[in-house]
Structures are given as structure tokens and as C-alpha cells.
């Protein structure tokens, strides 16, 4: 297990430089005017960044209002009876709700829980798995759709939320199965 981990860690360090090297030299071998073509493609970069701004501001401010106004805490309280049914400790619920909304928020919740209960407690393991297996769904939605100016997102949002719920349920189930 450890050798797999260190292999992947090394891979994640060398992957990007090697990929850059590979793309550039492959282009050169195929007689592409690499510098000119790079510049031509790169020109769009600034526009993409700027195009995302309104989408991300809209999304993050709505999430910010929901978090800071205390609505998040109330939602946690309302949902807490459900957690027992699926075998989730009530303390892990804020993590489950925060994960798709805010990456930094979820990281904060995870650190707090690990500090309070220990990294090797059942709940500590559970929030670690939730953090690792989840994704900041609403950020990804805003950025990806924003970059091509899409406002009518059709079924992407419900499908994304269902996948998030699946990931949380699986995290709870697997951790209970392996570590309880």
C-alpha cells in the first residue's frame, strides 16, 4: 500500500513537467511552429478568466449569505434526525452539507472535527473520506459553465447533487463497514 502511495505521489510531482515537455517536443517533431501556435492559443486565457467572474460571484455570494447568516446551522439541526438512520454521527453532518458548497469551508470543518475527535476516530475517518471523495460541485458548475457563458444548465445540477449524495452515503457505509 505504501509503495503505491509513494508511487502516485511521485507521479503527481513529475506528471506536469513531463507532460509539458512531451507536448512541446511532440509538436516540434511534427513540425508545428510551437511558439507561434502557443501564443495563438494562449491569447484566450485572459478572456476565459474574466468571463468566469460574474458566474462565480453570483454563486459564491449566495453560498456566503447562506453560511454566514446561520442558515447552514439550522439546516444541520433540521437534518440531524436523518443521520442516525444512515449510520452517520451527527457531528459529521456539517461536513456532508458543506462539501459541495465550499472547498475552504469543508476543509475548515474537517480540521475542526479531526482536532476534536482525533484523526483515527470513526468520525475523523468518515470526514476524511467525505473530504477526499467529494468535490465542490457548485464551484465546478459555476466555473465550467461560466467559461462558455451557459446559464441554462438543464439536468447537470440535479445529477450533480444526486452524485454528491451517493458519494456521502458511500463514505458513511464504507467507513462503518471497515472501521466500526
Amino acid at each position, binding site marked *: 500500500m505504501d509503495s503505491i502511495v509513494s508511487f502516485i*505521489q511521485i507521479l503527481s510531482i513529475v506528471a506536469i513537467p513531463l507532460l509539458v515537455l512531451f507536448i512541446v517536443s511532440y509538436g516540434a517533431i511534427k513540425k508545428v511552429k510551437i511558439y507561434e*501556435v502557443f501564443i495563438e*492559443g494562449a491569447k484566450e486565457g485572459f478572456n*476565459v478568466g474574466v468571463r468566469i467572474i460574474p458566474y462565480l460571484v453570483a454563486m459564491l455570494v449566495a453560498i*456566503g449569505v447562506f453560511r454566514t447568516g446561520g442558515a447552514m446551522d439550522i439546516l444541520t439541526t433540521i437534518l440531524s434526525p436523518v443521520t442516525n438512520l444512515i449510520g452517520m454521527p451527527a457531528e459529521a453532518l456539517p461536513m456532508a452539507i458543506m462539501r459541495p458548497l465550499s472547498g475552504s469551508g469543508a476543509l475548515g470543518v474537517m480540521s475542526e472535527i479531526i482536532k476534536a475527535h482525533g484523526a483515527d476516530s470513526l468520525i475523523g*475517518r468518515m470526514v476524511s473520506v467525505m473530504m477526499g471523495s467529494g468535490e465542490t460541485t457548485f464551484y465546478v458548475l459555476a466555473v465550467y459553465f461560466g467559461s462558455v457563458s451557459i446559464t441554462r444548465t438543464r*439536468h447537470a445540477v440535479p445529477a450533480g447533487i444526486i452524485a454528491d449524495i451517493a458519494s456521502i452515503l*458511500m463514505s458513511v457505509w464504507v467507513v462503518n463497514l471497515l472501521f466500526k
Partner: protein
Amino acid sequence: MLNYIWLTLILIGILTAISLDLYDVSTDRYQTGKKISATVIINNPIIIRERGEKYLCSIRINKQEIKKLYNVNLTEDLIQQADITFIDNNTAYIEIKLDSNSPSIWKEQSKGQQKDGNILHGKIYFEKESDKNFNVQLIVDPVKFVRLNSVTNEGIVKYARTAVELSIGLIGIMTLWLGLMKIAEASGLVQKIAGWLKPITVKLFPDVPADHPAMGAMIMNISANILGLANAATPLGLKAMQELNKLNKKLGTATDAMCTFLVINTSNVQLIPATVIAIRAASGSANPTEILGPVIVATTVSTIVGVITVKLLSKLKIFRKQLEENSK
């Protein structure tokens, strides 16, 4: 869909803040104007107690006093560092520097005072003096609408700034990858990569031609995500979105392929969640990497569920209609 989610978040967020604030005011949660008995110990001997004179000190409050006021149990007396600035011989402004020992109600109040968030403002009235110790009465500056204050200062102003910073921060790496991807396209590399996983991708994205550059970019994005290369994954994903948008007949509306791609992205298979492992290691876990297996299982299942859901939902009439209505 996003319209409703957006409205719900904002509406519930602000209405909750208002009702919590009104409840706090009606129950006098922050004990506005109450006098708190405390002892102030001034580090330097005081020479003059005149207007504007500033001193560093520590303030000590009995734990029974805290219990009586806020109904919070502390294990020992509360001692906090503070700055005081004299108004006249017997009164001074006090700025209490909050730390990890401070009662959480003080932290809420300091946020409501609209200033730094880590400093609690108040006034002290001097009573008795013995050596460097002074008996004082502390009155914390009144706060109203603590929640609405933090909605304004954090929820709105700070998050809006964060959103712009994130977008701007993406420009550099975005520019780099768009340039590199152009080289990869011109040299035929992207099309080649697209060919490798043809049997799977053609099923996942039936509306995208098998050798289209979008396929190559999507495969590269998904691989980068699996390896946890966030720096490359997002730019590659955005590049894929641009390519997919070239196939979009009605701009502004998401195509089936885009929705599928998005869901694969938000539920992505993760081999190595580096941040989580780092935090676990730093918190003294005996085996920080033991969560890898569960993470791989959970992400794989959620990706499968996501893809099945997105395929089923795309057949629903309401979502079909949006696509067809708009393409007239």
C-alpha cells in the same frame, strides 16, 4: 434549476439572519449594557491617567461571573490581553484581544461590532486600586444584528472578493494550458489521445464525434483529476468545455455532453486526495493513508451513480424540451 437554488440560498440565508437577530435582541442574548466585574493588571506602571494615554494590560474575569452572565462553564478564570486608552481619570476604552480561550459569545459580539472580528470593544470604569491591579466594571459596546453584520461583511463583501480573486488567479495557469493544448491540437496529439479510449467515450458522449478535439481535452481533464493534478485539471476541463461549446447549436444552453462531462467532473474518481492525507498526518494519525481505499470506492460509486443519473435525466421531457425549444 440554478435560478431556484440561487433564490433559495439567498432568501433563506437573509431571512434566517433577520429572524435569528430579532430573536437575539428579544432575549437579550448579549446582555447589552450589563456591568461585568473584572480585574485589570497593567504591565507598565501608570504615570498619568489622562485622555489619550494608551496602556497594554491583561483583564481577568472570575469564572462565576461568566457563568452568571452567559451561562457558559469555564474551567478557570478568563484572562485576556487588552489595550486600554484612557478617556479621563476613571474611565477608559478597552480593546480585548480574543484568543482560543475567549467565550464564543464574545467572538460573535466582536463580529457584530463591525470591526476587526478578533477584538472586542468596550469601556471600563475604574473602582479600587491596589498596586498594579485595578478593580473595574467592564461594559461591552452594544451590538445589534450580529448575523446581518456578518452577512454583509463576510457573506457578501468577502465572498464577492474571493470569487474575483479565484477567477483572476486562474488566468495564468489557464493561459499556459490553452497555449499548450493548441500545440497538442496542431500536432494531432489531442486527436490521437481521443482515439485511445474511443469505445468508452463514444458511449458516454454519443453527440460528440469520436476524433473531435473535445474528446482529447475531456480525457486529459479526467486523467488529471484522477491523479489529483488540480492545477492542470481545471484549465483542461475549461478547454474541453470550449470545444464542446463549438458543437453547441444553441449557445447559452448546456448540451447533453456538457452535462455528462460536468457530472463526471464533480463526482470524479480520486486516487490520491493529497490535502486530506496531509492534514491527517499533521494531526497525528497512526495511518494517514488508510482512507485511500474507502475514497476510491466512494468516488467510483458516485461517478457511476452520477453518469447513470445524468443519462436517465437527459431523457426526461422537461430537459429535452429546454434543448429543443431553444434550438428553434
